Every structure is written in C-alpha cells, then in structure tokens.
C-alpha cells in the first residue's frame, strides 16, 4: 500500500507512522519526528539552507531505485522497507546505530520519513565477488528520502556502488549507515549524479571494526545544491580508510562535502585525497575535520585536497581542520593546493601539438583518474568519465 505524504510544511506526527510497518519501527519514527520538530535549523557556515526551499518537500511513498547484484548464499540486498518486515532481527540492531535517529535535525527527519533506500547484508566470512550496484531515484513526488543500511560482518568482503540519479524530483534527503565488522573489507563508491534541479542533504557514515578496511570513493557532480556530511569512524584497532573524492561543480552548482575522520582505535590509518574542479559560476566546498581522539595511539593520517579552477568566477573553499587529543600520533600530514591549471603543464602539452582545450581536458581527467579508476563497474566508470568530460 502507498501512503501519501503532505508537503513538509504540513506534515504531522501521524503522517510519519506507516501503518504496515512493525511497531518498533513506528516508535522509532515517532521518536525521530519528535527530535526533528523540537530541533532548530542548523547553522551551516557554507550552506545556505534558505536556497533549499524545503517547505515544498513532498515525500514519495513508494520505493524507487534499482539494484544489480549477484549474491552468494546468505547475502541480502533488498529495499530497506521490505527488509524491516522480512529481516527485522538483522535490521533492528543496526538501524540508527551509526547515524542516530534522534540526532542532527535532517538525520532525524530522514529517520522519521524515509521510504526509499537499501538494506545490504553480507554475513561473516562471505566474499561477494561481483560489485553490487544500488540506485536511488525519484518516485511520484518531488522528494526522495532514502535510508541505506549496509552491514558487512566479520571477515566479509564486498564492493558496493550507491548511486543517486534522477531528474524528475527536487529534493533528496539520504542517510547511509555502514557497519564493518572485524576484518571486513569494503569498497564503497558513492556516486551523486542527480539532475540539475536537485537539492541533496545527505549523511554517510561508516563505522569500521578491528582490522577492517574501507576504500571509499565519492563522486559528486550532479544536482543544484549538495550538503553531504560524511564520516569514517575508525573505531577498531588497526582499522583503515582510503578515502577519495572527485567533485565537479559548474554553473550555478553549490556542492559541499564535509568529511569527518575520527581516529578512535589503536594503530588506525587513514589516507584522504579529495579532488575538486570548479567551472563557470560553480562553487565547491571541502569542510573537513580529522579528529584524533584521546585513547587512540600510533595513528597515521594523511589528508590531501586539491582544487582546479577552470574559470575566474568559479570558487572553491577548503576548510580542513585537525584536532588531536592524544600524544601518540605516528604520522599526520596535510597537503592542499588550489588554483588554475598549471601553466607549465599546459605549455608542455601544447609543445607536443596538443591544442589548449584538449590539454586542459587531459589534465583535468588525469587529475580525477585515481578516483575514476576505482569505480568498480566498467559501464558506470565510462558513463561518469564521459559525463565529466562533457562538463569541462
């Protein structure tokens, strides 16, 4: 059955209760709604929330999105809305365990109203050979609220692409929770290729167990506005993240990524490499924070962020932060650049006969190459590569 939601401005507590859902989930949504309605709009220093026009949001009630997966026995990929009925014992312990239902205002709104999104469950020791691709699109109304719950148990391995794509809507509110058990290996590729009018507020958080490792690749290039708060919580001893992102913001786009890296366990290791290209009146923001918590030790962390400006009006902001609450850091490094395409590189390429436009093109595609190279599905990699090439 489908529920019809009123627009956000008229939404009430009773609307967020979906009658066919288990009672525990109804209560969970109610608590989230309570948290949302009692919160105040956040102050985001680089995101102008008034430009999002959220009052018009009207949540589509049906599931929307596709999946491509070849799964070994025991592994599950299905809409979360279905999984809460069929696998409550697997969903319930984890839902909201990484991104709290009653936390940040829009995470709470997501918890109260989500209808779309995926449940991915890889049981212990299970190795999924083929990359899994899930997509989140638009339904009948202008807003998609998606909740993804990805649970990868002890020593399991999976490569997952989570793609946001669609042109028929205007708002997306997403939460992705990733739980990595001890020794798990996850490749997580989050791809945002929304149509031109979409405003996306998202939370993507991974909690990484002992000796577990996540290779996180983000592509941000669609939509009008993006505000994605991402976090890797290196909770386990010996846990690792290798985190890359490619962002392209061209005319009118304002794309923000706020990655947090939390070193909690002993001997955790992180490499972050965030790359941005801005063009026309595009504006991209990197608002990152590396937090090395007290109690962590032997931490290795490295952050690189680089921005290329292809036009004089284009802007990028980089606000990296580092907070260290321990005396035991093995290595911490940071490198940052921002500016136009290097004149020496251009001269070199033109001196080989390559026209300037093509040289710029090659330099930009080369800049993104390490990120694009990690998209596990060849067809998607080609699609994204072409889409970026057409934008620059």
């Amino acid at each position, binding site marked *: 059955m489908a529920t019809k939601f009123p627009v956000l401005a008229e939404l009430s507590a009773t609307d967020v209760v979906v009658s066919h859902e288990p009672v525990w989930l109804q209560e969970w949504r109610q608590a989230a709604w309570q948290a949302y309605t009692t919160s105040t709009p956040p102050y985001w220093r680089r995101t102008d929330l008034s430009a999002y026009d959220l009052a018009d949001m009207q949540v589509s009630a049906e599931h929307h999105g596709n999946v491509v997966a070849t799964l070994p026995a025991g592994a599950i990929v299905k809409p979360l809305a279905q999984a809460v009925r069929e696998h409550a014992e697997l969903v319930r312990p984890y839902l909201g365990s990484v991104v709290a239902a009653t936390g940040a205002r829009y995470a709470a709104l997501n918890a109260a109203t989500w209808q779309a999104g995926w449940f991915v469950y890889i049981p212990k020791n299970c190795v999924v050979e083929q990359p899994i691709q899930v997509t989140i699109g638009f339904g009948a109304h202008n807003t998609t609220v998606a909740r993804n719950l990805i649970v990868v148990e002890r020593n399991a391995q999976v490569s997952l692409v989570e793609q946001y794509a669609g042109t028929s809507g205007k708002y997306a509110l997403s939460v992705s929770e990733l739980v990595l058990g001890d020794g798990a290996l996850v490749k997580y590729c989050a791809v945002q290729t929304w149509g031109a009018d979409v405003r996306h507020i998202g939370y993507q958080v991974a909690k990484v167990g002992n000796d577990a490792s996540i290779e996180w690749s983000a592509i941000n290039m669609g939509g009008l506005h993006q505000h994605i708060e991402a976090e890797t919580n290196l909770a386990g001893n010996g846990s690792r993240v290798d985190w890359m992102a490619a962002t392209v913001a061209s005319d009118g786009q304002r794309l923000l990524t706020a990655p947090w890296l939390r070193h909690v366990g002993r001997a955790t290791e992180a490499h972050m490499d965030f790359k941005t290209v801005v063009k026309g009146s595009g504006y991209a923001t990197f608002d990152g924070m590396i937090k090395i918590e007290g109690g962590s030790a032997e931490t290795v962390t490295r952050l690189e962020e680089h921005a290329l400006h292809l036009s004089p009006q284009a802007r990028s902001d980089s606000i990296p932060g580092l907070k260290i609450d321990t005396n035991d850091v093995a290595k911490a490094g940071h490198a940052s650049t921002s500016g136009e395409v290097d*004149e020496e590189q251009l*001269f070199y*390429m*033109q*001196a*080989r*006969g390559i026209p300037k436009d093509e040289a710029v093109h090659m*330099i930009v595609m080369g800049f993104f*190459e390490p990120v694009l190279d990690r998209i596990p599905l060849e067809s998607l990699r080609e699609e994204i590569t072409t889409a970026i090439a057409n934008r620059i």
Partner: protein
Amino acid sequence: MELVIKDLHANIGDKPILKGVNLTVKPGSIHAIMGPNGSGKSTLSNTIMGHPSYEVTAGEVWYKGHNILELDVDARAKLGLFLAFQYPVSIPGVTVANFLRAAVNAHRAEEGKDPRETAIPMAQFRKEIREQMAALGVNEAFARRYLNDGFSGGEKKRIEILQMSMLKPSMAIMDETDSGLDIDALKVVSQGVNTLAGHNPEMGVLVITHYQRLLNYIKPDQVSVMMDGRIVREGGPELALELEERGYDFIREEVFGNGN
C-alpha cells in the same frame, strides 16, 4: 626548411634576457649553441617554442613561411618544431601512452576532417611505441605510468627522446638534454637523436648545451656561442673543442674586453 631567428629580444618580467639573437639553423644540419649559465640559452629555446613566461619585445622567428612568434604553441609543434625540455613536466593521471597518442593524433589532425578519421590506428600506435621504447631501452611498463610522475632525471630525458622519435619533428631543439644524465643515458639519448636525424636528412637539430661533452655524441656541423643574450661567436666543431680547453673566459674577454 631552415629556422631563421632575426634580432630576437625577449624579457622575463621587465628584465631583458635576449638582446638581439640572430641565428639560422639549416635543414639537415646539427647546430650547437653553447654558453655559460645565465647567457640566455634556455630563454632562447623557450621563446622559440612560445613559453608564456617570456615576452618577445622585438624580432622574428621564421619557419616554413611563418613568423612562428604569431602562432600558438601547439601550432608551432604541428609545423614540425620539437622542444626536448630541460625539465620535463609531470602530468599525474595521464599515462605516457595516452599522452603520446594524443600528441601523435594532434599532429595527424587536419582542418575540416573528423579527428577519428585521421587518428593513428591503435595497432599501429602500439607497434610504433613498442619499437621506439625498445630502441631507447625504456621498459614497456613505462607506457602505463603517469607521464614523468616520479621518473628519475634519466628516465625523463629518455621519455623526451621517445616523444621525439614518435613525433618525428623536422626541427628539434634539445635544451640542455645532457644535464643530469650519466654517461650511459647520454649515449642512449644521443643515439636516439642521431638515429632520427639519420632517417630524416632534412631534419634540423639545435643543441643547447653548457658542456662540450654532449657534442662528442651528437656531432655538430656548426657551433654558436651565446653570451649576455646574443650570439657572440660562430664556428665549426673545432670551436666546441676550443671552449672545452680554454673555457668561456677567453671569448668573454675578446667580446667584452678585459675586466668584464
């Protein structure tokens, strides 16, 4: 065709570096420019190729019927000019093979024709690059590495010569190609230049060097000495040997007088 440089003046910022260079490089000849550090040799090669940091304030450079100073850098390359860089630039994310293919195809492109029509067939490109890499003693794995990214000085210079071998210029400018090379690399690089020049009797080569050493391997037909932004002496190969023996000071004294 000859390369004719007429009264070339160029600045970096407000500082004049080239102060009236006159020089002709004949087709089929190897022409060496020697000079002490700071004499303007590298400025000359970069100005001929069109580096944006150098401002031409007077003069002309003629090649194949064009004053090339009026052409874009890539158009100069397409006329057949090639600059082997003293400090080759790295292009992360662009492999040697992809870069070379783009360069080869840019040379083959023709106005008004679909680039797909003029592009080198993949099999032919692979065959050529493999042959040229073998000839230069460059491991095939380099084709898949990012251009000059993390390469040693010697590796970079070999890749410069690889590019030259693939692009087959009619006029090559070697800018301090010997700097930073050990003797083995120097021999390989020189052999690459000689082989290419041997295959193309019309090819001109302008060799810019501080030391005579390179000229043991790439034998010049003519030697010009540059000082203070001008060509101050011209001669045959014997001039290089004289410079090797006596240093630059005797010419400096002859040209500028004692005490300069």
